[in-house]
């Protein structure tokens, strides 16, 4: 177990290195950072001078090496655009994104799973079919459209909820984390963006659970559980749901990662001061230090999430823990 986890973490270093390498090799395609930083009427000579000064004229491999040797020492550089250390920039924006992503994934799980169970059990029910159709709205309307429409309805017309931003935040954990969960305006501000973000995932979770439920409910052990007179709840949730969880856990893990990493559209629409916006800005500004550090961090993130998902598999399914088949697959 410990060896497995540490082995995976060791592999993650390779992953992060590869991500950094790929990222660096594609910065050439993103644009020219100097032009993003300098005034439009700057002279060519000045541009060239700055290129030189910033080392952008060096071969990519040298730039990469320079970056990696800094990164290994925990120094991810200073953003071209923000002129601040990248670590600080990310740390400032992390709470906003994590809270939004966490809440929306939580919402999607809390709503998606029961709905999935329900629609799976009542396959031909009218309500279930209605839910199935309605759930598609969440994925067939683009996020930005949903966001704008929610804003229009709840902020402009009804005036109930703020249309942008995080509201008031409170610093906790010795100031290292700013949370919107502790103020009224912070909570109000979370509502629209988290709904917008959760829609797609709720649909996904719901449909996956339903699909798997349909299979599981036909198995002999469910039939036997019913024959033993077990209660509906025990059967649906203890026996059936648990057996549907593998793909659901997988997808939730990936979605959580995706939402944290690239919730760009939602964050833009609601002016959410999170990492997605930071990254989008970095792409637009060709802010190489931010992009690299960000991607490396995201890689690490996914490594962790996937590790947790894999561990969850083993927690969920004891058959995976047995090693009878190891090495015999090619016998």
């Amino acid at each position, binding site marked *: *177990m*410990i*060896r497995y986890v540490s082995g995976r973490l060791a592999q993650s270093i390779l992953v992060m290195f590869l991500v950094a390498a790929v990222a660096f090799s594609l910065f050439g395609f993103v644009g020219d950072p100097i032009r993003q930083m300098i005034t439009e009427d700057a002279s060519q000579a000045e541009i060239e001078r700055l290129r030189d000064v910033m080392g952008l004229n060096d071969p990519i491999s040298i730039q990469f090496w320079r970056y990696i040797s800094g990164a290994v020492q925990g120094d991810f550089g200073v953003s071209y655009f923000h002129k601040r250390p990248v670590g600080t920039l990310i740390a400032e924006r992390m709470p906003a994104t994590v809270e939004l992503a966490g809440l929306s994934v939580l919402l999607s799980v809390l709503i998606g799973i029961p709905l999935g169970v329900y629609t799976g059990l009542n396959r031909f029910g009218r309500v279930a079919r209605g839910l199935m159709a309605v759930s598609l709205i969440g994925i067939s309307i683009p996020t930005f459209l949903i966001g704008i429409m929610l804003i229009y309805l709840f902020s402009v017309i009804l005036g109930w909820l703020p249309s942008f931003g995080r509201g008031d935040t409170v610093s906790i954990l010795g100031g290292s984390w700013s949370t919107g969960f502790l103020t009224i305006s912070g909570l109000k501000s979370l509502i629209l963006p988290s709904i917008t973000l959760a829609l797609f995932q709720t649909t996904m979770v719901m449909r996956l659970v339903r699909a798997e439920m349909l299979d599981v409910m*036909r*198995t*002999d*052990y*469910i*039939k*036997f*559980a*019913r*024959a*033993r*007179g*077990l*209660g*509906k709840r*025990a059967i649906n949730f*203890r*026996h059936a749901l*648990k*057996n549907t969880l593998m793909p659901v856990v997988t997808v939730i893990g990936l979605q959580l990662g995706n939402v944290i990493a690239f919730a760009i559209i939602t964050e833009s629409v609601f002016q959410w001061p999170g990492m997605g916006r930071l990254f989008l800005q970095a792409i637009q500004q060709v802010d190489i230090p931010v992009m690299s550090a960000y991607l490396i961090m995201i890689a690490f993130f996914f490594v962790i999430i996937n590790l947790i998902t894999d561990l969850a598999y083993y927690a*969920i*399914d*004891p*058959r995976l*823990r*047995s*090693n*009878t*088949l*190891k*090495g*015999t697959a090619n*016998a």
Partner: protein
Amino acid sequence: MSLLDLKDLKIHFDTRRGTIEAVRGIHLSLERGEILGVVGESGAGKSTIGNAIIGLLDPPGRIAGGEIWFDDRRIDTLSEQGMRAIRGRRIGMIFQDPMTSLNPLLTIGDQIAETICRHSDLAKGPAMERAIELLGEVGIPDPSSRVNDYPHQFSGGMRQRVVITLALCADPDLVICDEPTTALDVSVQAQILTLLRRLCRDRNVGAIFITHDMGVISEVTDRVAVMYRGRVVETGKTSDVLTHPTHSYSKSLLAAVPRSDVRLDHFPQLDYREAGDTRAERKVIDLATHWLGRRAAEPAANDTPLVQVDNLTMRFALHHSVIPSWRRSFTAVRDVSFEIHSGETFGLVGESGSGKSTVARMIAGLYQPSFGRIRYDGTEIAGPEAQVMSASMRQQIQMIFQDPFSSLNRRKRVSEIVSEPIRHHRLAQDKAEADAIVADLLEHVGLGAQAARCYPHEFSGGQRQRISIARALATRPQFLICDEPTSALDVSIQAQILNLLKSLQAELGLTLLFISHDLPVIRQMCDRIGVMKTGELVEIAPAEHLFKAPQHPYTSHLLSLMPQVAGQGKLERVNDR
């Protein structure tokens, strides 16, 4: 009023290909304290009746007519809610398939305790203690540590005992047992049967006992119903029916019961066919011309045994850990050595959980042994110098799995399942020929060519087992491992299939490793027999020798427990020592 009354019960399956009438109007009743045996053709609708009583027919099955009365209440019209109050608490059910009846993700203990909690007001802790106690009662060794195991860590017979425990743990008034002892060795079987009997007598519980084992029927049941093609053709007191069957199907069935006293060349077979049976006439196989008789290459007849097993040991890891002292493992097979000669049938008997299936799987190359080596035809196929099995070797070694339910891919049609080995080993020229072979094989296992178009879930347990057999035969194997090949079959089909195996052996020199709990069958089939107990091979002897003069005390213990069919000559017991 009787405990259970079935009045003109009809059950239909509406499939895409039309309606299948599985049960065609039967009347049955059961008194408190009575044990009713149900025997009959595999696929006759026995399990379907059981499922219908408890209100859990597999879709698309439905009750097309008739009534079910339980304890003076009509229950076939009850709501799901109403049924839930009855299930488990009032009617206990043991489904035919113990392998898939248990939730793979929950421990054995959890599943028992939750059922106990549901039907009593015990808290979780005491319920778990009760679970351990119950497991002990059904003969699971070391129950307090094994409650924490998961179903896949149990052998087939052990799982069956868990299922029995689960069905009985809430003290129901009626138990429906669908082949509850097929996977059990005779000693455990005897234990379970005693338990059931006691339950019925002492607590006035009614029981329906579905089985193919005439010995069991004769030993435990009060009355017996014989089913054929969705109808009850005969009912009566067990002793009457067994000794003086009136319906000709019953006669043919009883004639096919394997004898435990003498060894015969072939199983007696008597064909009964009802007018209107659309299935093709049962064919006698002529191996000289038949496809199964066509062999790619005769194995070189030499003195080396075909299969050689040396010091085989299998350890399952139960708990992985970095720290060696935390690791737990379970030695399922310890130091087993034997050899099987070409053209021979080697039997493996022994208590349930003794490692028979594990040995079989290692020989088949499905498990990697922890120690020891296996040689096939001189080539080492498992062990330190193991070679990769060649395609032809793969074709030569086949296995019939103990569990016919999970060994069939649920998403494939029978035709695909059976033709797969043929296509893979290019045993047929073209698709048409392959289809013909499949149809023929299905006929020979008594399913009929029609079966090819269906999916496994549309079949009864015995029918699925026959699909599995057809698949194993499809490669024209040289060496066939049979892990309980006929446990779910009625004796008449059993006779048909075992006769087929015998003639394959006689004419083509097929070698068999035959695992069974059915000692009469073992006696009829095997040349030499190995006896296993807790992972070790305690005795190997020629069949007749073993039955007449068992050496090991365990062997004689086993033989003494063999259930007897009333009317058949008792086995002459030769005391050991």
